[in-house]
């Protein structure tokens, strides 16, 4: 296990290094001058030059990279071209919104998907089971932002139960208001996300229900509920957990559109703004943090799978996938 952790950790660090270089290059390859984001239609030639100096587009690529990487090594994500403010603290500020949004949505999606997926599998031969499956599969075909718009229309504009968007000024110091403002976004993400989860839970459950060991347990006197609880849950958890890792990562960044619909000051809206303004430090910073999150989540999902499934413990990381 220790060896596995060391190897897997090394892989993690290597991936991060690779990703950071790739990120840097990818952004520099994009055409366009970030200095333009600092201009207004009244800008003088002198101001244009000053802007180019400020964003460093007058320096060579390796020079820019060394600066950035040096900062990164000190956990400093640099300063935004546009606002001249440090990127790191702003990311932290925005994680306060994005992280709970992601985690709540994720938790709710699981709470929805596990029982529904289980029932879809259990009732797979009945018309109501087929109906439930079909209904839940509709979720895969619905764009998240549309769900958000409909929820706003119904619950904010018509019923006025929840706010239509925004995040309270007091932030989490006012947990009631913060939760209220996250309710509709969380629901939006969870509904869409649970649709694909249901598919996996259903399929994992079907596999388990058809498994020989479940039949063995019942042949030795276990009730079907006991067999499901003792053997089925764990066996179904393996494949679902690996999917959950990918889904969690996707939600974390996929919140971009939903944050935009609900005017939430999260990482997603920061990224969109950074991209449209060619604000490289912002884009680099957000994507770097996201990459870390994605890789760490992947690592945790791997670890969880190994804890669940003894068969994986013998094999090397990254192998047999």
């Amino acid at each position: 296990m220790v060896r596995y952790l060391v190897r897997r950790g090394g892989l993690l660090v290597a991936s991060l290094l690779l990703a950071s270089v790739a990120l840097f290059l990818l952004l520099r390859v994009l055409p366009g001058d970030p200095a333009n984001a600092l201009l207004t239609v009244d800008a003088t030639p002198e101001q244009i030059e000053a802007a180019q100096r400020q964003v460093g587009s007058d320096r060579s690529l390796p020079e820019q990279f060394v600066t950035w990487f040096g900062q990164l090594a000190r956990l400093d994500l640099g300063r935004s071209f546009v606002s001249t403010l440090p990127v790191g603290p702003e990311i932290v500020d925005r994680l306060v919104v994005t992280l709970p949004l992601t985690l709540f949505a994720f938790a709710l999606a699981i709470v929805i998907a596990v029982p529904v997926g289980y029932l879809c599998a259990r009732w797979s031969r009945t018309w109501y089971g087929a109906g439930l499956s079909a209904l839940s599969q509709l979720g895969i075909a619905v764009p998240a932002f549309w769900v958000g718009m409909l929820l706003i229309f119904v619950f904010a504009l018509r019923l006025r139960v929840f706010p239509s968007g925004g995040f309270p000024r007091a932030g989490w110091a006012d947990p009631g208001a913060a939760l209220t403002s996250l309710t509709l976004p969380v629901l939006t993400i969870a509904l869409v996300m649970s649709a694909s989860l249901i598919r996996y839970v259903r399929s994992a459950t079907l596999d388990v229900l058809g498994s020989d060991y479940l039949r063995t347990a019942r042949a030795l006197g276990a009730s079907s509920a006991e067999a499901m609880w003792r053997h089925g849950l764990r066996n179904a958890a393996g494949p679902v957990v690996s999917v959950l890792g990918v889904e969690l990562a996707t939600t974390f960044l996929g919140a971009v559109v939903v944050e935009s619909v609900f005017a939430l000051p999260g990482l997603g809206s920061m990224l969109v703004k950074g991209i449209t303004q060619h604000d490289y430090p912002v884009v680099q910073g957000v994507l770097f943090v996201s990459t870390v999150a994605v890789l760490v989540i992947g690592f945790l999902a791997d670890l969880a799978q190994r804890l669940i499934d003894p068969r994986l413990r013998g094999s090397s990381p990254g192998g047999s996938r």
Partner: protein
Amino acid sequence: MSLLAVDRLAICTADGTPLVSDISFELPSGGRLGVIGESGSGKSLTTLALLGLLPAGLRVSGSIRFHPAGGEPVQVVGASESALRRLRGRVATVVFQEPSTALDPLMRLGDQIGASVRRTRGLRGPALRAAVLSALADVGLDHRIGRAYPHEVSGGQRQRAAIAAAVACRPALLVADEPTTALDVTVQADVLALLDRLVADRGLALLFISHDLAVVSRIAERVLVLDRGSAIESGTVTEILTAPRHPVTRALLESARHLDAALEVRQP
């Protein structure tokens, strides 16, 4: 009074396609019956039907009656799930063909044996642990195997563990559904010998399902031959071996002889 009496058992799909029809046999306490047939002959469905384990959507008719010594008779066909639960493990257990899938891959072997012992015999704590150890010993497994996961041991050891779990429930009837088919030829004989010994020692009745007449003839007293869902012939092992009446039985006998011949060449 027979331990198990099956009368005009028939199984068909929801849309009425018959899969098994008109099977009848009896098995006295301590008796050994071999059920033989090609794949698709309905022998596995019959096994599952005995314990009410058929997949949803199949319809069963006829009668399957268990009458354990000192207990009430139970009619399996149409029985409630809780009645079936009292039957499974306590009266009859099954050892399935494929030990690598029949055991939960994520649970230690000892725990799997323990779970069925705990369930059927109500043992807890040290008594349970002792029962698991003795069950392992009964099938000739080292106690350390109890700490292993199924994928960590050999196919033969897995099947022994599965047998241990079944026998440790102290049933009156052991149903063995092709228990040796998935094993290496050399291991087959050992497992067969083990079953023979266990059944004899404990006075269990044995229902042995196989496609291999040679194997069945070594362990069973009587034989029932199935073909395409129907019983075509039954009798003692000697009767079937010496005077098969049905062409299908004769064909089975032929292939068994070929195999035996081949085996003898290999094991001088």
